């Protein structure tokens, strides 16, 4: 009798655990994006369409970054990165390949603020308070997972069909 109730309790615990885990996964999959209303971004007026396109392409760049670093595949960077940002990510992937590691970046939340739009319209700067999870995978074994909240600064420039990230680095709060 005692044994039966223990098994039932264990089953209940397992069910609750699974339900919680499912909820956790569902919650994790919801990428929250907030774009702060920007009144003045420097010398040039920022049209809504431009802002929408820049934010869309910046978020797409995060997806490319994430895939490229997870798969150690630098060819995934070309669509969204250019210049120094692309070179540095390329180098990181090479480092990872040499070390036999991979990293998984899963962005959870972005709070984006457009802070500068250059007078000739050839560069736009964003500050993004971002939350993401990073996992270190060494020879296919997950070694560490860390939830990160930090601020990133990105400079995007227009190309033929989309905005690409030219500078991408963290900008810790002063």
């Amino acid at each position, binding site marked *: 009798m005692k044994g039966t109730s223990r098994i039932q309790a264990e089953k209940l615990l397992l069910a609750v655990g699974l339900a919680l*885990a499912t909820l*956790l*996964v569902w919650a*994790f*999959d919801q990428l929250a994006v907030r774009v702060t209303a920007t009144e003045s971004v*420097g*010398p040039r007026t920022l049209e809504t369409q431009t802002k929408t396109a820049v934010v869309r392409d910046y978020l797409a760049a995060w997806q490319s*970054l994430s895939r490229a*670093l*997870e798969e150690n595949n630098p060819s995934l960077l070309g669509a969204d990165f250019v210049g*120094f940002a692309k*070179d*540095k*990510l390329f*180098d*990181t992937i090479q*480092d*990872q390949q040499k*070390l036999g*590691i991979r*990293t*998984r*970046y*899963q962005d959870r939340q972005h709070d984006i603020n457009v*802070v*500068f739009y*250059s*007078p*000739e319209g*050839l*560069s736009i*700067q964003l*500050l993004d308070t971002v939350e993401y*999870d*990073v*996992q*270190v995978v*060494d020879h296919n074994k*997950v*070694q*560490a*997972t*860390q939830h*990160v909240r*930090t601020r*990133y*600064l990105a*400079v995007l420039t227009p190309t033929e069909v989309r905005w690409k990230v030219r*500078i*991408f*680095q*963290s*900008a*810790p709060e002063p």
Partner: protein
Amino acid sequence: MKSRFTFMFAGWALAAMAVLATAQTAPLELPKIIAAGTALSVSTAGSGRAVLYIVGPGQALRRDMQLGETIIFGPGDIHNAGHYTAALVGSSSTQTAEFDVTAAKQPSMLSFLAKPSRLPVDLHDGISGVVYVLDAFRNLVLQPTEVSFELSGIGGATQTRVARTQNGVAWVEMDSAPKAGSTQFQARVGNTTEKRIIQQVPGEPCNLRMSARRSGARVELETEPLFDCRGNTVPDGTIVTFKETYNGGETTVDVPLKRGVARTNVPAYDGSIISVATGVVMGNEIHWQDR
């Protein structure tokens, strides 16, 4: 889907490991911020083999080590500005820490965008200069920095402006000079300088005037030398359009400027109206009377 569950299980595993680790080892201690290119030492406690990972989008490092040792990363080992996660993975515990690498304080590169490369003279705020200040490792220097902009060249005083960077970027707008020709646009931070050449071309012609004289059965037309409103010669090749209207018909001739003037001839019709224009500038009109 795969990564979702990996994250989920890793989360559970990490939580369980964290509980164990708390009791066994001291936390991984790192400075919150270091400048790019500076050395970093990481002290560890405990015993046994471990691996230290330092990862961020800008760099990835891995070091095998013995717990209790101090790991030293030399100057230049960590050179890309960014947010990094450090994980010390031992046989029985994993410790993590985070830190930021900021740009070195000394600027050594400027990404200078000067636009346009060619513009008419005497245009207020016609030239824009944008500078991103970078360190030796191509990191954006976020510390406010003064950038000096200078526009100098043919005709007109040198214009100088100083702008302070905000989030690594500084910008100015400047006027084009009254005289046509090449001008040098320079941005400077300390000893670091970047130069661009901007061509200033004459503006729209001022006072387009032509004269007419009979030559047999035709009328020869010739403009006066063309200048813009600042006295710059309008460049050869600029198209001047002559138009003759007579009895409901129209004759149009496009002529490029040669040595500052445009010449052509049209049929001499008594009572015709001849006009001249270039671009959006209209010249005088002649009512041709055969005498």
